């Protein structure tokens, strides 16, 4: 398996619970990928309630970052799964809860978190994803997001 890092900037969500700001989507028909780290750093000075949860439908992304060979730690090949980092939505993904993680970020630009998942990481089966959203009916503010995954 190769390791990849892909980053983007999310847009603000609506003030709706379980709306997502960004997600890593696995579009492959049969192959899993494994998320080993998630990084999230605020770009707006407004507090955030944050959840990390699985998604079972991609929704409609209007901004997508497609990792290629330049995102490969060894710079050899693009992700076999065709993994996609979605950062803006016109139709929201479908959450598959309960949330795996929750936290609160203060009203400060630059506040954020880095989650490192031990062992092989969180498996994302084909046709599913892992997203960062708001668990409550308040806007999840824009942030710089990074997913590190094995594929």
């Amino acid at each position, binding site marked *: 398996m190769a390791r990849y890092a892909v980053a983007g900037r999310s847009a603000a969500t609506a003030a709706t619970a379980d709306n997502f700001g960004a997600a890593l989507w696995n579009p492959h028909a049969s192959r899993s990928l494994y998320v080993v780290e998630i990084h999230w750093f605020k770009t707006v000075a407004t507090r955030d309630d944050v959840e990390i949860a699985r998604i079972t439908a991609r929704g409609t992304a209007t901004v997508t970052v497609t990792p290629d060979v330049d995102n490969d730690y060894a710079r050899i090949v693009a992700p076999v799964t065709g993994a996609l980092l979605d950062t803006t939505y016109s139709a929201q993904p479908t959450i598959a809860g309960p949330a795996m993680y929750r936290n609160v970020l203060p009203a400060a630009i630059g506040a954020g978190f880095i989650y490192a998942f031990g062992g092989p990481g969180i*498996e994302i089966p084909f046709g599913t994803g892992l997203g960062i959203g708001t*668990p409550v009916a308040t806007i999840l503010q824009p942030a710089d997001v990074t997913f590190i995954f094995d594929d």
Partner: protein
Amino acid sequence: MARYGVGGHNAIAGAASTNRCLAAIWNPHASRALILLHAEWWQADASPGTSNLGLVRISTQGTPGSTVTPDADNDYRRKVAPATGALLNLGDFSVQPTVQGPYMKRAHVSGPASGAGSGIAWVLSRGLFVPAGTGIAIVTTTSFTFDAGDSSWTFDD
């Protein structure tokens, strides 16, 4: 063993007291242990106060204000729900769990002037065995009214 992550939100405490439970992982199984690897808590109140917190074992479940039941979606491999039937119980509890001290960890979390978002994350590198019919809780170590907050837990089951 499979690895799970689960998060939840506790309400503000109804009163100030020591050893009042904010959140707890409870293992209801009759014979199987789980292994707790990580616990964290973040203040969610707009004007948070100072929180003196402890991580401690509990020998009774108490009566939680709400419960999150992890399922297959909480499995790192998305295959199966926890075999122990582990539960994330959240405050404010109407009947407090029974604390089995001394505290294993303690932390002092101060509320920032700008509002919510301060907290504590404990990484339990070798894991904390949680025997059947017991749990691990985040509780107050002094008598104060704890804030609403978000907690996250990682465990092997």
